[in-house]
């Protein structure tokens, strides 16, 4: 789905002017066995889109790994600087001061973790992009304001274009667009 849901055999985009209608349509379409469904909306339409009920463990693993790298990097920089390269004897305290080094190590752990979360998200979503194919859809700009779109990928087996179009309209879609990739 790397091209905004517009697969080789195209996609159907249906526009709804009410969030509740869009949600009902989404559930209905799922019930009818459509596999490739995606919504575009100005706010999360379902509970799982709020990110609370589902965990995204791939990102969590990346963040954990980067946080560990951050802690290690922070500690090694301090150890090298103050123990190997330029040890300062202040009142006979040990040059390799584990407790003192832990403070900045914690901070760099959190820094690396925070940055990894952000960068990881952008990589996973393939952002930033200034232009996307779906921006060309007529009226799609409403998807961030007060329109709710449902896309159906057409590569799933058993999608009959005319029938699906009819189904979407019967669910009160105000507009149904068929998009096909140019070959």
């Amino acid at each position: 789905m790397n091209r905004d849901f517009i697969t080789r055999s195209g996609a159907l985009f249906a526009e709804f002017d009410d969030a509740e209608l869009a949600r009902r349509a989404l559930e209905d379409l799922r019930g009818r066995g459509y596999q490739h469904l995606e919504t575009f909306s100005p706010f999360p339409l379902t509970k799982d889109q709020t990110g609370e009920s589902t965990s995204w463990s791939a990102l969590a693993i990346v963040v954990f790994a980067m946080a560990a790298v951050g802690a290690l990097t922070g500690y090694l920089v301090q150890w090298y600087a103050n123990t190997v390269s330029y040890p300062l004897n202040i009142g006979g305290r040990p040059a390799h001061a584990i407790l003192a080094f832990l403070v900045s190590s914690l901070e760099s752990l959190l820094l690396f973790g925070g940055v990894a979360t952000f960068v990881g998200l952008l990589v996973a979503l393939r952002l930033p992009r200034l232009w996307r194919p779906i921006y060309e859809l007529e009226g799609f700009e409403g998807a961030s304001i007060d329109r709710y779109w449902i896309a159906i990928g057409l590569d799933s087996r058993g999608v009959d274009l005319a029938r699906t179009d009819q189904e979407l309209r019967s669910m009160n879609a105000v507009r149904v667009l068929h998009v096909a990739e140019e070959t």
Partner: protein
Amino acid sequence: MSGLALESAGNGGAFAPPASSTDDRRIAEAVFDALWAGGITWWILFWIAVAGTLLFIGAVTYSVARGIGVWGNNIPVAWAFPIVNFVWWIGLGHAGTFISAFLLLLDQRWRSGVNRLAETMTIFALMNASLFPLLHLGRPWFSYWLLPYPATMGVWPNFKSSLTWDLAAIFSYFTVSLLFWYLGMIPDLAAVRDRAPSRKRRLTYGIFALGWAGSGTEWRRRNSALLIIAAIAAPLVFSVHSVVSLDFTVAQLTGWHETLFPPYFVIGAIYSGLALVLVLSVTVRAAYGLHDVITETHFDRLAKITLVVGLLLMYCYVVEMFSAWYSGDPYERAQYFVHRWHGPFAVIYWMMLAMNFLTPQLFWFARLRRSAVVVAIAGSLILVAMWLERFVIIVGSLSRGFLPSSWREYVPTWVDLSILGGSIAFFSLLYLLFLRFLPLAAASELRADRFLSSRGEA
């Protein structure tokens, strides 16, 4: 992509269109209507803030050009206004992330009315705060010496010093807070992009919206990422002011050398930050008529948290005094019970104590918690009191050390006062620009909360 087969509009059908989303849409519109809307009042405030910022720049330039002898700092009061201002600003920078991250993690959905205001406040307060230690170096152009880089001279920063911990803590906190703030704003920036009346604005907001389209996958992943960043930001809130307090506790000075300091400073920081959130949310609500976005319930809950944190702070004051008395150390006892109560800064001390103790007591009463006027006045009093608290801790303690022969008073100069006033003006300037050019509340979250809760899912 081309080859669009455009067909439009079906109508009628078995689904009757319910009139559910008008309310949440209206609320979101109120947020976006505030964009680019600045009447005469905005411009007046803007120019006042610009004038104050120029004063700030002027006073800083003068300090750098002439040297920090133009300040009132002396020996022993070597840490005076700049460090008081630093601790004050960085404390103000705590409530934003506290409110956002903690309330997000605790699933407190009411936060969406005020979280953007609070997060923005954090970013700008941290920007102000970080200027002061650099200025206090005296030669700020050497501030990069604080960073661990392989210098030709072969020297490195001393990581056993709490001052370098400070740098790491503030840098991490600022970066993570900035990402948290930005990540929360991306969908709203996309909404602004699609509403913008001119191509220039569409392009500008479009760049910052990063190509957000609001797909289900984007929402799911972005919201998961937001939770992870919140979980990272939460310990940062505690670590930053703890580290700031270590700048003090590692010294032997009475009034500084206390194990209580890390929690005491964190509590004080959140307390002052909450006070600023109260003041800002009352002001913004009145200025933009956002009575549905920022409600009296917000004031009520924020005031309750302020009361609790205020009582915790009182507990710290009591423990601090008890420890001084219980230590049996004559210098400790003199610091707390002679110099603070009767010394040269006794007036400031008693003012601070009275304002910090009495003000939150208003919040025992539901009617007062819900009153915008009371909340704003109380917030302002706490802000002043918390500045005075840092003055008492820093200047008060330094001016009365162990040796009576080294005791010395402290008087700020006009440069000190200009830098303090100017930094407030600079903050106001940044905040006014934020109100004009960025969505001032998390519109997408406000709508999602209402939509999902109307379905019994939130």
